[in-house]
């Protein structure tokens, strides 16, 4: 027979104002199974807790119900109290008389009765409670950072400096990301590569960081603290141990006309190449799609000339398996291209470029060495129109959100242009100016007040070419929507920030949520911005939402802190509210028939297959097995199981049924 103690809390006046707590305590004494029932003003206080502990000892209680606030408030509190008194904490439950009763009803007899009923129903559950023990899971103290841009580099450095090992995986041949393509950064106009490359080198040289460039994550198995990650190291076609980065192969490669990705198509590169001179690692890669040898079997100039004989044409991709404890996604973003704009010519006008292309034109290491030359004919543009909000805040283009960084970089672009072409005319068509960061608004004002950039409030309806000029047809809404036509030499579109290519695919590989735009989903938009809903996987940077460099770095450090926090324990403790597949003696073994409907229903990939083997190794039966390390106790499999072979510890079918029948 159960010996349950019921402790009804007044919660000051929160509960007592509408529920007659003394009466409730009295009513509970007559519930079968209850041997002790009291009420008190503040159960969570020290005296209140002591009261519970003393009652456990004195009345030899084997179950405790605290009828008070929501378990989300104080379940851990009371479970700790009870554990200290020597009773298994999972034998303590809370009845919510506050959020579920006193806060939603008026004072009266019915409210008091409901409170008593809530407790009475819970008694039926507690009678059937089993003692449970937390699950312990080991932690591999190596982090995986996916993405080698500024976000990934910052995360890697912070975790490495925190004393843990990091593997930094980057899909392009060098780390650095989009920040390495920028010319100068706002609001300081720092040279982007000058502030980035020291970090890149630091990451490459850090003893705790292993760089895997030209690599992609192929598969992720496992769970928090215990991931198994397969990384595909794409074949660079050279022996990295022998290559010194001398660059002779690049100089001598005969095929020089390949459109350059780093320069956003404005320049060319060779078939064996390094994306930019400051690349880390400074080892080239052969573009097999464009290399003459792979297309025709001839050439091999690089192999002949390499002083250390490092070229390996036959090299294959390599699959590397890693044991990882935490993963941080830092895969960045991509920019919408100019061909997405029918009204601006579907990208056919060479002198209508996007923001990143402008960065390359302005950059000292770019295709024009930083001299302002327009792509079509190399002439210096005398009138440049910058169009903000190109594609962003645009329902008709499927991008209703604001891309955040464009107002700032447009002002920056206009200023850079004016600094290089003093007599040039710069116009910015804008809708709003979003310059909310530190020193940001002053930066935009500087463009307008000191650098004479003309800001026009309105969008551009159409751009077409006539007599070598681009006719920009916009409007000024501050002048009533008056049409404004500008004959420009070059137009820079501040195109929308979008999620990177194949981000959906990556999210599915990692089993993290993403939104309809492909940005990865944070666990809570306000309070948990660097975590995902998948345990052990964190987020940093623009892969979550458009953001600028200061915020990216801040978020990266935040994600790193979470990882270091995770790694500060040798073992992870998990709540034992998990599902369990029923086991029976042979020859039944289990009511589970191996249909695995549960496996497809489980949102957390927590269900595995387990084979029951005979002595000779023959498989007798294949059963479902729940991984207690991954199971979140949602109960979906319990509901799905056709033979009722799965049950949830702490919320068994029997318990729930009993509660309902008592109602």
């Amino acid at each position: 027979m159960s010996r349950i103690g019921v402790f009804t809390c007044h919660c000051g006046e929160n509960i007592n104002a509408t529920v007659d707590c003394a009466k409730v305590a009295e009513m509970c004494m007559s519930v079968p199974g209850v041997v002790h029932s009291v009420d008190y003003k503040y159960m969570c206080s020290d005296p209140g807790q002591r009261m519970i502990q003393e009652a456990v000892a004195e009345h030899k209680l084997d179950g405790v119900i605290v009828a008070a606030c929501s378990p989300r408030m104080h379940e851990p509190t009371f479970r700790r109290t009870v554990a200290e008194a020597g009773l298994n904490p999972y034998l303590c439950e809370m009845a919510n008389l506050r959020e579920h009763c006193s806060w939603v009803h008026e004072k009266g007899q019915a409210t008091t009765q409901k409170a008593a009923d809530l407790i009475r129903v819970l008694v039926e559950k507690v009678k059937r409670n089993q003692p449970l023990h937390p699950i312990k899971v080991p932690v591999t103290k190596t982090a995986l950072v996916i993405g080698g841009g500024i976000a990934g580099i910052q995360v890697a450095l912070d975790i490495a400096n925190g004393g843990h090992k990091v593997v930094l995986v980057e899909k392009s041949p060098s780390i650095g990301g989009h920040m390495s393509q920028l010319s100068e950064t706002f609001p300081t106009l720092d040279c982007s590569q000058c502030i980035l490359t020291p970090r890149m080198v630091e990451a490459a040289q850090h003893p705790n960081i292993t760089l895997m460039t030209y690599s992609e994550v192929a598969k992720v198995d496992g769970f928090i603290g215990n991931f198994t990650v397969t990384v595909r190291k794409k074949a660079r076609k050279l022996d990295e141990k022998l290559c010194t980065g001398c660059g002779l192969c690049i100089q001598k490669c005969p095929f020089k006309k390949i459109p350059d990705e780093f320069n956003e198509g404005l320049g060319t590169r060779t078939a064996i190449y390094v994306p930019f001179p400051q690349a880390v690692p400074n080892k080239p890669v052969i573009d097999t799609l464009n290399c003459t040898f792979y297309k025709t079997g001839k050439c091999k100039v690089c192999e002949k000339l390499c002083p250390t004989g490092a070229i390996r044409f036959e090299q294959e991709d390599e699959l590397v398996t890693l044991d990882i404890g935490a993963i941080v996604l830092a895969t960045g973003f991509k920019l919408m291209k100019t061909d997405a704009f029918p009204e601006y010519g579907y990208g056919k006008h060479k002198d209508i470029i996007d923001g990143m292309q402008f960065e390359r034109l302005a950059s000292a290491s770019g295709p024009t060495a930083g001299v302002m030359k327009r792509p079509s004919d190399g002439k210096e543009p005398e009138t440049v129109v910058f169009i903000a909000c190109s594609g962003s805040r645009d329902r008709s283009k499927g991008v209703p959100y604001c891309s955040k960084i464009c107002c700032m970089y447009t002002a920056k672009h206009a200023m850079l242009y004016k600094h290089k072409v003093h007599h040039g005319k710069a116009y910015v068509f804008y809708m709003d100016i979003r310059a909310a960061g530190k020193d940001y608004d002053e930066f935009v004002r500087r463009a307008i007040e000191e650098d004479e950039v003309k800001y026009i409030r309105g969008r551009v309806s159409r751009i077409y070419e006539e007599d070598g000029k681009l006719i920009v047809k916009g409007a000024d809404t501050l002048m009533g929507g008056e049409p404004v036509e500008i004959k420009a030499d070059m137009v820079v579109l501040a195109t929308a920030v979008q999620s990177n290519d194949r981000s959906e695919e990556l999210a599915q590989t990692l089993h993290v949520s993403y939104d309809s735009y492909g940005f990865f989903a944070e666990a809570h938009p306000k309070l948990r911005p660097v975590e995902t809903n998948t345990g052990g996987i964190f987020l940093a940077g623009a892969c979550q939402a458009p953001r600028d460099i200061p915020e990216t770095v801040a978020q990266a450090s935040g994600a790193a802190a979470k990882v270091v926090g995770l790694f500060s324990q040798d073992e992870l403790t998990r709540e034992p509210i998990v599902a369990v597949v029923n086991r029976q003696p042979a020859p039944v073994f289990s009511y589970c028939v191996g249909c695995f409907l549960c496996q497809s229903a489980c949102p957390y990939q927590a269900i595995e297959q387990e084979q029951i083997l005979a002595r000779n190794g023959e498989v007798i039966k294949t059963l479902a097995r729940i991984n207690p390390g991954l199971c979140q106790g949602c109960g979906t499999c319990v509901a799905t199981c056709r033979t009722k072979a799965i049950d949830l510890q702490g919320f068994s079918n029997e318990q729930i049924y009993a509660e309902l029948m008592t109602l």
Partner: protein
Amino acid sequence: MRIGYYPGCSLLGSSREFDESTRAVLTALDVELVEVPDWNCCGASSAHVIDHTLSLALPARIMALAEQAGLTEILAPCAACSNRLLSAQQEIEQHPELKAEIARIIELPYQGTVKIVNILEVLDRVTERIAVKVTKPFAKKVANYYGCLLVRPPRVVNFDRPEDPQSMDQMMKLVGAESIDWPFKTECCGAAFSVTRTDIVAKLSGKLVEGAVKRGAEAIVVACPMCHSNLDLRRPEINEHLQEEYTIPAMFITQVIGLAMGLDPEKLGLQRHMVSVEFPVERNIPAAAGAQA
């Protein structure tokens, strides 16, 4: 192939040559046209300005008559007519409560099942037949002028692309013409202001004529009677506005295809144009110096 035919009012009168050339060309391509019996005016620009329900009822009557005659498709060569028909059809479909009301007004049952197609869509179905019959390729530089209503609004007409459309350009390539790349393919000609604000038509259509000639076009090809009228009938006003004598002809696409197929120019109604269809086009003859050139 057999298809319902809705000529519309302008094809009976001021753009008779569009009707003539369409019939001539489609007949030569073995397409049988079945005129919608007792068809009425679709309401064009006027109905929707004056009364919204009227602008739905008039097209609905046409479609109801087609349904009654067992026609599943209607070719409406006039871009304004096809646009009004599609628009009315879509609105009634999206507001089912209108269906009964409209049926009551037009005194005919209305299902909304007839498919409306424009001339380019029909020509696109018989490109192989056209290719075979081209005997005199129309080897000229042409400016393809689509106008507004063939391609806009995209969610109503769902045809080609609203900026820089390509369907006419592809058709012209088929008949040997060289289409110029020009930015005014879909800039409005001035629409229904031909009579009431001829000054606006002169300005807008003038920009088209000037733009086409500047880029070397020898003919402007159109698929809309209103556009044709503004570019052809109103040429004196355009020339007056531009202070230049532009003689570049405006031709219906069916006329160009007809010529390429070797059909008799008179059967294509070329003699009905105000700006005569003659090649080579003499450019910018000053209006005053008549004898010199």
